[in-house]
């Protein structure tokens, strides 16, 4: 803190020579003249002294018969004196400062976190509809209102937080679990077969099983009924209870698989020619900087850019980066059979992985590599097991299927 105050007040580093330097230092101390960072270099002493004190040492210098001269000047008073000779620089610095002050009133970056099914573009479009985009004044953004609007217009959002820090608008989202959503939002539901096949296992937790293990089922067939009849003590049906059917069911089925790849294809052959250009985007205007730009018939362009960030949460509407152009020629090539084979098997694995994500597991695969004209094929049968059943809501129309009078005694909803 002391050194900061010295900087504000301004100080000089002086050179003191002569025999009476210790005496000079002692007298300064006694008279309250502050000296600091005293060091000896050969026959001379260097010390710092405040500007105001420098004018007081004249008498002490005469008395102690030493010589004092200024080595360097430090602090704000000297800085301002130097700056008075550089008016344009100072004006530019002030302009820059006020420009930054002005710019901090706007949103220059939007960060979206936690979204899965709702894409960034959907959110940005929605913000746009609400007149929020890069360059919107921060005072025009009502974060609480925006949160409410999001919750109102996006059913899949269970939690949202809209925050603004610096020039960044941050949107944190938690989306609804889809499976949970389907069941929770339904009044009552039954489970149906998603495809033709054979039931390999069925464990019912809620509802009435309409099929058993080993039964062949067709697509759309009712598997677990969500309508539970309530039996009276005399064995007659007194009413119906509607529930969300819940069961672990797997249906096994076979499917054909076919994929082919051509032996002949086109490939990029890089010529080795490449160039790079620097560019800058200020708002919507883009400026390119390059000495010479060769013309390429085909070129691969790689883009790398960054937004100017002064510090955390303080972005400015200035992007800079490079564009790299790599020239290539398109050449026709005959592909290696082994390479194509591995590519076909790779495609099959990707296909099976995508099925797995949908709840379908591969039990057995019987595929063969073959050639058909200029194509290499991979085809065969897959035995699959689907554990993702179709859930359909039981709506009021079901009442027509139930006997008159009994419909009224339906106990509403889930037992949970």
């Amino acid at each position, binding site marked *: 803190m002391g050194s900061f105050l010295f900087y504000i007040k301004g100080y000089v580093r002086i050179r003191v020579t002569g025999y009476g330097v210790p005496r000079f230092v002692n007298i300064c101390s006694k008279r309250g003249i*502050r000296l600091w960072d005293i060091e000896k270099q050969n026959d001379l002493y260097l010390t710092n002294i405040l500007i105001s004190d420098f004018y007081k040492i004249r008498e002490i210098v005469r008395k102690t018969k030493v010589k004092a001269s200024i080595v360097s000047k430090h602090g704000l008073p000297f800085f301002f004196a130097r700056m008075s000779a550089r008016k344009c620089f100072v004006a530019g610095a002030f302009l820059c400062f006020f420009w930054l002050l002005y710019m901090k009133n706007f949103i220059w970056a939007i960060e979206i976190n936690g979204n899965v099914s709702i894409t960034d573009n959907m959110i940005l479009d929605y913000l746009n509809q609400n007149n929020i985009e890069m360059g919107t004044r921060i005072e025009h953004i009502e974060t609480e209102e925006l949160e409410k609007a999001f919750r109102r217009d996006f059913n899949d959002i269970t939690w949202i937080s809209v925050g603004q820090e610096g020039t960044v608008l941050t949107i944190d989202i938690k989306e609804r679990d889809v499976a949970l959503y389907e069941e929770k939002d339904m009044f009552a539901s039954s489970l149906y077969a998603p495809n033709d096949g054979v039931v390999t296992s069925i464990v019912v937790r809620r509802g009435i099983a309409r099929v058993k293990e080993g039964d062949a089922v067709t697509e759309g067939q009712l598997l677990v009924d969500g309508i539970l009849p309530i039996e009276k003590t005399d064995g007659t049906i007194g009413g119906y209870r509607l529930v969300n059917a819940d069961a672990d069911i797997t249906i096994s089925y076979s499917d054909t698989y076919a994929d082919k790849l051509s032996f002949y294809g086109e490939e990029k052959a890089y010529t080795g020619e490449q160039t790079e250009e620097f560019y800058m985007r200020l708002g919507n205007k883009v400026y390119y900087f390059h000495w010479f730009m060769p013309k390429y018939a085909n070129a691969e362009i790689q883009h790398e850019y960054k937004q100017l960030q002064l510090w955390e949460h303080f972005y400015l509407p200035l992007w800079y980066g490079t564009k790299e152009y790599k020239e290539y020629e398109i050449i026709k090539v005959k592909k290696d059979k082994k390479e194509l084979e591995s590519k076909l098997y790779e495609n099959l694995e990707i296909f099976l992985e995508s099925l797995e994500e949908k709840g379908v597991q591969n039990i057995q695969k019987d595929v063969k590599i073959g050639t058909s004209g200029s194509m290499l094929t991979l085809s065969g049968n897959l035995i699959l097991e689907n554990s993702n059943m179709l859930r359909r809501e039981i709506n009021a129309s079901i009442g027509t299927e139930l006997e008159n009078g009994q419909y009224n005694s339906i106990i509403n909803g889930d037992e949970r």
Partner: protein
Amino acid sequence: MKKSNNPSKTEKKEHLADLFCLPHDVVCGASNVTVVGSMRVFIENYKGILEYNNEEILLQGKHKKIKILGHCLKIRTYNEEEMVIDGGIEGILFMD
């Protein structure tokens, strides 16, 4: 560290300080020397500098002289209350 030219007086003052639980440097006027590692020394209760160079600094205390030995010695702060010396401290001597 309390130093005095007159042992009997010093002893009396020290006894008094012990009796009333008073700080010795205040009662006896002894110099207060605090060493931080081997690179900084704080000194209070001194009268002035007698000699100064990069290898040694000789100070006049109230009763004794204090010699700071070392290399690259610099006086970081110097005023009537305290003095801060930076550098490679090698030894501190108290001399009559």
